[in-house]
């Protein structure tokens, strides 16, 4: 079955995704980027440029470079929105046939759908190139407030680009789909979409198999670009204050300032402070000037707070328009790159009182949702053959009561793994295989699935025998654990039927426990490991001493024995630092005799 392309045809940027093996995945464009600027241009030698290349020549060819065509698509020329945009758009527009809009590029007039089609066509070609197959069908997203004419025009654009449009879906619906919220029953969802140039709020209600738009709101002229502009202005002002130079006329300096502003904005989503550093930003009469400035997250928030406050007010208003109480809202979804800003996340959470969904890349969530819709329509073929995963890790208990995992949680079954283990003591003739399930580091904190003993291991020094332990889970979740002594080929095994007999709640509880105890478990495991290392060293030292009785000088022997006793005592204690110290000292002492033994051999 050929793939259906999910397309987020945005005002400033577009993205595309397909479902592969049941999972939506973003498709990169030819240039290797996950989003494509929604910009179209025709160059002076009549070459059509779309995306990044169109952007790069915009300055020199602004009358023939078209962006924001989405603001015009399917609208009447006399629409107040169009009249408002006409004032600031650098390209020429006029009233076309049927009262629609026409855009002028190089003396030719195009409809907005033709412009959008050029973007869609680039996406189509790039996707085909990436996937190595023809793509003929697509699902395109539009804002929830788009009327029939705008939806039809978007569909037309898709068809001009050579797609068969399977469906036009709402952007907020796509975002909800990407998070799988369609599977929930009768939920009320708010989608807060702060894009590059537009801000949209949508209130959705999920019914039986339907997602209904209850209200839409926002501001078509509020976006992340406004925040960038604010930062750039601030930086330029600071420079002027500091150096008395106005950068506004210096194109390269302004470009570098813009990049620095975007970078600072991104960094301040993760850090509380960042340093902006642009050496040689401009040339003054007396030499070059540099730009350095420390910017804090608090400063960024001060600069842009009015935009955020406004968006929160619009969010509140839209929920009211849907006639819902804020307390009735079940889920909040964040869309658009700007929602990475911690202040936005906090303010949204403060208003709604719920943790917003933000795990999926907010620049990609709409395209991924469109692809998910395609997946639903195609019906995933693989559903016939349902593959399960092990919900929890499986392993055995090893030296020091540590759980050693053989099969990690979320491994698709059927699967098999094996690993070689050895004995912990000299002349150990049997090993106990203690089969465990869970995520905790220490064996006794996990669930015991079974145990068995493999005996008849020939007496030998510790660490020498090779015991191969194998785990095998079949498609029904039945676990077979085997142990094989490589020397004798003696085998023992156990079959565990109920390896996945845990309820969903049990599994969740076990996972949660592991998270809660992660830190202390790590310490316990570390302690156990250090103790094991001490134990191994003591063993080796004792062995060396007894094997080389005659070759070791008496004073060395005495020192080592002393250190040995200290180490032994420490090992049985609980002070981790003491064990470390004792082990290290013993190790140093024994290195001395190691060297002298070696020397003797050399001279002999």
């Amino acid at each position, binding site marked *: 079955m050929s793939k259906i392309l999910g397309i987020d045809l945005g005002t400033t940027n577009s993205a595309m995704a397909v479902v592969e093996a049941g999972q939506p995945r973003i498709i990169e464009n030819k240039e290797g980027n996950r989003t494509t600027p929604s910009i179209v241009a025709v160059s002076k030698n009549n070459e059509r440029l779309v995306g990044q290349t169109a952007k790069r020549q915009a300055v020199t060819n602004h009358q023939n470079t078209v962006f924001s065509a989405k603001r015009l698509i399917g609208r009447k020329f006399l629409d107040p929105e169009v009249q408002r945009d006409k004032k600031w758009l650098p390209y020429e527009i006029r009233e076309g046939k049927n009262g629609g809009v026409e855009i002028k590029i190089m003396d030719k007039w195009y409809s907005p759908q033709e412009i959008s089609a050029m973007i869609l066509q680039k996406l189509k070609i790039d996707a085909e190139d990436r996937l190595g197959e023809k793509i003929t069908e697509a699902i395109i997203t539009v804002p929830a407030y788009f009327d029939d004419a705008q939806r039809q025009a978007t569909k037309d654009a898709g068809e001009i680009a050579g797609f068969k449009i399977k469906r036009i879906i709402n952007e907020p619906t796509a975002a909800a789909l990407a998070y799988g919220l369609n599977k929930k029953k009768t939920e009320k969802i708010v989608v807060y979409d702060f894009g590059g140039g537009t801000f949209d709020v949508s209130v959705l209600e999920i019914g039986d198999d339907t997602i209904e738009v209850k209200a839409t709101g926002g501001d078509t002229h509020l976006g992340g670009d406004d925040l960038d502009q604010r930062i750039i202005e601030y930086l330029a002002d600071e420079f002027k204050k500091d150096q008395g130079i106005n950068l506004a006329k210096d194109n*390269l300096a302004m*470009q570098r300032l813009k990049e620095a502003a975007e970078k600072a904005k991104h960094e301040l989503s993760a850090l509380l402070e960042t340093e902006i550093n642009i*050496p*040689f930003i401009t040339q003054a009469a007396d030499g070059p000037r540099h730009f350095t400035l420390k910017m804090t997250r608090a400063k960024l928030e001060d600069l842009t707070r009015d935009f955020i406050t406004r968006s929160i007010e619009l969010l509140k208003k839209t929920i009211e328009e849907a006639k819902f109480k804020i307390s009735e809202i079940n889920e909040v979804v964040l869309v658009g790159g700007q929602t990475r800003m911690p202040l936005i996340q906090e303010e949204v959470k403060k208003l709604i009182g719920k943790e917003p969904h933000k795990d999926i890349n907010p620049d990609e969530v709409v395209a991924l949702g469109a692809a998910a819709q395609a997946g639903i329509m195609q019906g995933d073929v693989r559903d016939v053959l349902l593959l399960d995963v092990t919900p929890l890790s499986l392993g055995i208990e090893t030296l020091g009561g540590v759980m050693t995992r053989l099969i990690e949680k979320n491994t698709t079954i059927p699967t098999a793994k094996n690993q070689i283990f050895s004995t912990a003591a000299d002349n150990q003739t049997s090993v106990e295989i203690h089969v465990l399930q869970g995520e905790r580091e220490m064996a006794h904190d996990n669930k015991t699935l079974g145990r068995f003993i493999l005996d008849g291991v020939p007496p030998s020094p510790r660490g020498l025998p090779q015991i191969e332990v194998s785990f095998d889970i079949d498609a029904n979740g039945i676990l077979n654990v085997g142990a094989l002594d490589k020397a004798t080929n003696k085998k023992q095994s156990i079959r565990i039927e109920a390896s996945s007999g845990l309820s969903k709640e049990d599994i969740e509880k076990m996972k949660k426990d592991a998270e809660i105890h992660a830190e202390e478990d790590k310490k316990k495991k570390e302690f156990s490991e250090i103790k094991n290392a001490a134990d191994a060293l003591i063993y080796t030292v004792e062995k060396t001493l007894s094997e080389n009785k005659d070759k070791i000088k008496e004073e060395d022997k005495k020192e080592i024995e002393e250190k040995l006793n200290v180490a032994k005592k420490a090992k049985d204690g609980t002070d981790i630092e003491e064990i470390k110290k004792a082990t290290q000292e013993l190790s140093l002492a024994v290195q001395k005799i190691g060297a002298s033994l070696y020397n003797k051999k050399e001279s002999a």
Partner: protein
Amino acid sequence: MKNETKEKKEEDGFEKIIKECEEKRDEYLKGWQRERADYSNYKKDEIKKIEEERLRIKINFLKNLLPIYDSLNEAKKITGNEEVLNQLENFLKDWGARKIKTIGEKFDPEIHEALETIESDKESGTIIEEMQGGWKIDKYLIRPARVKIAK
């Protein structure tokens, strides 16, 4: 006679079961083959993706290094010290990075970014001045060259 019909019926029944079993077997075999093929294709795809990812990391690394090159280039103009710049230039070369040609070339938005147009006696669209150097690695762009072009 009666017995024969019964036997015949039983035989038909067996044949039906065998036929069903064979169909099932074929279905499973096909499914299994498909899985194996999917897996093998997936592996090939993954290898390709890893290679792309490597290239992406490399490009990103070089892209973040270039501003330092720019600064050293500016510093050289003042101090005349070329050593550090040359060292970095060699490093970039070793990594496969190549400078994009600019002055006198025809503007190409695939590799150039226009910041200004200026009056000139040169043919329209010809690059007059390089404001910031651009770099490529093979056919991949690290950073476009920022240029002034003739009106």
